[in-house]
């Protein structure tokens, strides 16, 4: 942009900061804060749908063949549709929009000190495509034949042929929704990286950027480099379904393994795409509430780079028993076990940050600590699955299911609550109720462990995933196994009931909560230096940054925090 046109634009925009009509403020916004909140709210609504689905199919497993209260009878096809869409929604329509698109949009400009994203309209387009994709997915539940039921990995030939999947349009709409959603995040991702590169406040060097922003950016880079093959695969699958090609059909000369390659090439980096934002958010939360400098800022950052690099070379571990060459499998065992090293290092850095700090157990801190504890179990069980020999036994069992729920649940749900409770004062200008927040935390965290710890044992007992009714298998129909299933299901119901506490707390605090000061947590980063909620255009004057984001309890200062934009004396 040339200087002259920029200058002209500046003036016109400065006025526009004030006089936005309702339409342009909330329906067609270009303001990153509104877009971020749109993503978060859409994600929360989708989370309710996904949670409802999990309730329905867990009830079916615990009490097979009985009418599920508030749902009705779950048939076999419907069961498949429920588990498929539970997985799809929770990963693609909850984890990604809330953690990356939602908090990324909200936090990146605030934390690096600029007034908006570099490409605000691209940003708006990104949300609009995302909304369309969510609507397409919801529409797919209501077409003839029902929603797609071929599992969220949608392996062909089951997914590529209506004769096998029995969901003619459901399958096509599903793949269309997924492809649209990726296009949307692609546009958003370009924005995040470019903004962080080019729009930082003066004085903010690479090593002054808060870890949360860094990790969201690294996650987005991973996403952008890995999503191409899946889009290609989605196009091919869609053509198989609708145009009669046979890319994935052995009968027509295609190869079903090909889809698994394209899918998992994206699918595994995707795990780190959703993990890294939560890791970054947790880093910010634990430093604030232990009043200590982040232990090894650079180390944490480099481990994230190492994780990102390695995440491209581990994907075939999902295919150990899919018929790939055992020699290839060996290589992927080594890389899979290797990737636990940088992540373990990151964990140790966080624990070292906590060590010796003056820890304040506010609600966001509880969530952050809960994340670290739960994710640790998820990470450790992953090492077993990474060994190709063990995987032959564990593959597609409830052990795998429990493992990845111990990673995804902390990442998505616990990480989301940590971020929501931490930035709630900034977003809505009011404080959340601490007591209700703590009740909600314990009411979620304990039942969560009660759901998924037993599932490890079910998996070791040989229980397979994606089975509609275990009573049909004599070895799995025993009463002691059934008791474990009932216990897990009841824990889920308890957990879902406790979410009502959060919903109540969220909406009551939003309108009636205590007014929040600019900096309720005494944090350093730039977003706390402006009013809550931030006005359109964020900063009155462009802030200048003098130091890193984690200068807590610096010796020789009477305050135990040191805002990034406070000029040195």
């Amino acid at each position, binding site marked *: 942009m040339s200087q002259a046109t920029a200058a002209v634009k500046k003036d016109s925009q400065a006025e526009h900061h004030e006089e936005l009509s309702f339409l342009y403020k909330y329906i067609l916004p270009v303001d990153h804060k509104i877009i971020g909140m749109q993503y978060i709210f859409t994600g929360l609504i989708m989370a309710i749908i996904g949670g409802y689905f999990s309730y329905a199919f867990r009830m079916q497993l615990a009490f097979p063949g009985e009418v599920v209260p508030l749902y009705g009878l779950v048939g076999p096809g419907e069961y498949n549709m429920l588990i498929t869409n539970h997985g799809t929604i929770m990963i693609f329509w909850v984890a990604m929009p809330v953690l990356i698109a939602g908090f990324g949009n909200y936090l990146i400009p605030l934390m690096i000190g600029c007034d908006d994203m570099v490409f605000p309209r691209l940003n708006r387009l990104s949300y609009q495509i995302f909304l369309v994709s969510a609507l397409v997915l919801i529409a797919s539940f209501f077409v003839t034949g029902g929603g797609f039921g071929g599992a969220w990995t949608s392996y062909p030939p089951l997914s590529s042929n209506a004769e096998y999947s029995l969901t003619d349009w459901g399958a096509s709409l599903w793949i269309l929704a997924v492809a649209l959603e990726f296009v949307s995040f692609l546009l958003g991702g370009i924005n995040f990286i470019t903004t962080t590169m080019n729009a930082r406040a003066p004085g903010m060097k690479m090593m002054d950027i808060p870890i949360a922003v860094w990790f969201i950016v690294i996650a987005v880079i991973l996403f952008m480099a890995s999503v191409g093959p899946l889009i290609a695969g989605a196009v091919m699958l869609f053509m198989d379904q609708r145009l009669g090609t046979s890319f994935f059909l052995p009968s027509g000369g295609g190869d079903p*393994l090909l889809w698994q390659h394209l899918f998992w090439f994206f699918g595994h980096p995707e795990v780190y795409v959703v993990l890294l934002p939560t890791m970054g958010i947790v880093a910010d939360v634990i430093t604030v509430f232990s009043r200590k400098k982040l232990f090894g800022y650079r180390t944490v950052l480099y481990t994230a780079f190492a994780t990102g690099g390695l995440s491209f070379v581990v994907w075939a571990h999902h295919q150990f*028993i899919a*018929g790939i*060459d*055992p020699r*290839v499998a060996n290589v992927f065992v080594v890389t899979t076990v290797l990737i636990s090293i940088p992540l373990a290092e990151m964990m140790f850095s966080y624990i070292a940050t906590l060590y010796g700090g003056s820890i304040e157990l506010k609600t966001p801190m509880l969530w952050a600590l809960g994340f670290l504890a739960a994710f640790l179990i998820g990470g450790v069980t992953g090492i077993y699955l990474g060994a190709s020999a063990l995987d032959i036994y564990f593959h597609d069992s409830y052990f795998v299911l429990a493992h990845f729920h111990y990673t995804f649940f902390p990442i998505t749900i616990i990480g989301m609550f940590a971020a929501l409770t931490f930035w709630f004062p900034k977003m809505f200008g009011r404080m959340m109720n601490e007591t209700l927040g703590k009740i909600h935390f314990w009411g979620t965290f304990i039942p969560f462990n009660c759901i998924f710890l037993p599932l490890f044992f079910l998996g070791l007992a040989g229980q397979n995933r994606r089975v509609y009714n275990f009573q049909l298998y004599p070895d799995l129909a025993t009463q002691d196994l059934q008791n474990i299933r009932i216990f897990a299901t009841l824990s889920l119901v308890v957990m879902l009931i406790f979410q009502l506490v959060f919903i109540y707390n969220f909406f009551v605090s939003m309108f009636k909560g205590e007014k929040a000061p600019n900096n309720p947590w005494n944090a350093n980063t730039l977003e706390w230096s402006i009013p809550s909620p931030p006005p359109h255009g964020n900063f009155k004057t462009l802030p200048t940054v003098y130091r890193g984001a984690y200068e807590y309890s610096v010796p020789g200062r009477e305050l135990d925090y040191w805002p990034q934009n406070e000029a040195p004396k």
Partner: protein
Amino acid sequence: MALFLQFIIVLSFSLFPRIVEACAVCFSGKEESLEAFYLTTVLLTLLPLVMLSLIGYWLYRQYRKEENVS
């Protein structure tokens, strides 16, 4: 050193795996298919790493140059 050599020897066993007969789905089809999968695995894995490191290095140099000038 001796430990390292032992490690290498043990590791080299992994180059000569036996087919897992107990596994019902562990078959691999034609040799050409296997090679094509090899090739594409290597291609897809290295492409993003190479591209990202090149672009990252180029951007790093551009921004470094700017810092030196100002």
